[in-house]
């Protein structure tokens, strides 16, 4: 078996491309700024939208970490598909469960949360 072109190519670059330091620094600065923004967003009362804004910023942060810290931007697409696939299944999991919750909501929330006796007492 001969070494494939991809292997020769990879080895000439030392297997994988090292992330430029400038990109790492830029990404961490953006991440810190977005963290501050997440906290700052709670100082403004937008009711229900506060949660969605916080989640939206979290998604942006997660994307930056995945793409640049985890090297997905330069990597084989397969790794990205594995991660996105897992996230899709989580979305399905939570989404479908919530449709069930919403369906039975009138029955559930007509009774407000009762004080719970923890096990063993």
């Amino acid at each position, binding site marked *: 078996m001969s070494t494939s072109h*991809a*292997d020769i190519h990879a080895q000439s670059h030392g*297997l994988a491309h*090292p*992330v430029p330091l400038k990109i790492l*620094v830029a990404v961490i600065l953006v991440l810190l700024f977005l963290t501050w923004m997440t906290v700052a967003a709670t100082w403004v009362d937008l009711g229900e939208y506060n949660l969605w804004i916080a989640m939206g910023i979290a998604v942006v942060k997660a994307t930056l970490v995945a793409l640049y810290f985890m090297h997905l931007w330069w990597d084989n697409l397969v790794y990205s598909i594995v991660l996105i696939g*897992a996230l899709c*299944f989580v979305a399905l999991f939570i989404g479908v469960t919530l449709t069930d919750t919403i369906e039975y909501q009138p029955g559930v929330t007509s009774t407000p949360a009762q004080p719970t006796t923890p096990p063993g007492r």
Partner: protein
Amino acid sequence: MSHAAAQHQPRDDHGPGHDPTSGHGAGHDPNLAHHFDSLGRQYASAKTGMWVFLATEVLMFGGLFCAYAVYRRNHPEIFQIGHVFLDRNLGALNTVILLLSSFTMAWAVRAAQTNQKRLTVTLLSLTLLGAAGFMSVKYIEYAHKIHLGIAPGSLWNPGTETGEGTHAAETGAAAAVSADHTAAASADHAAATAAPASTVATTVAPGQNRTTLAHAGAAPAGMAVTPHAAASAHVDPHYMTREKLDKAFIFFSIYYLMTGLHGIHVLVGMGVIIWLIIRASKGEFNENYFTPVDLGGLYWHIVDLIWIFLFPLLYLIH
């Protein structure tokens, strides 16, 4: 013969039918396992396996996020009651610590790839320091809550001191345990016991936990949780009753389970990083073989990713 070659001696033993010329250029690299044709394929194989494992981690935590979603949808009031006991500042601090440790970890991978041995060890050590810092803050948070009896499962036994009495007075003076609070806090508490909840709400300094005190109204008389329960929020003792807190039992179960499982992952990550530091200081990593650092880095980033979502969901509830 060098130790490395002696270790890998068996790899030169090719079985029958095996093409002796295959991959021999790289085959002498002590890091190339015999069953791989080249370092490139070995590396890709390792990375694929790691990403599949990370997918399972995402799914595992996904289940817990699902529990959170269902409970918050059905009983948002318990989240309103419970979240005042979470210190937003400590949560933000932990987020910053973990993000910075991800940065040093990603840089450490780069350093390993570029044959910078000392830099690799330094950066891995900084990552470890960040992890230790995270666990320390986590310990402080847990210790506060458990001291108040807000403990997981059958250990649940929140403080049952009455709103009146000397104990409440001294803890009332220390109403917010965060160091930022000045002596004005004790004056605030004195005002709180006499005044309705809306007065308390206005004395909360900007940027602190805004509680829903203004909407709480008068709580039924009875046993109250001492106000130093709230980490940085100023909680009116007449608002937080044992009865109300017991409703939030599930919130704290979710809190402990999610942050606890995440904390265990951080501890495991610390073990992995220590192992990497030992190997790196022995000079085992270079541009052709940095896979353990890379995979350890991927694990650490997933731990960071999960916290990126945990923080707003648990700490930034309005």
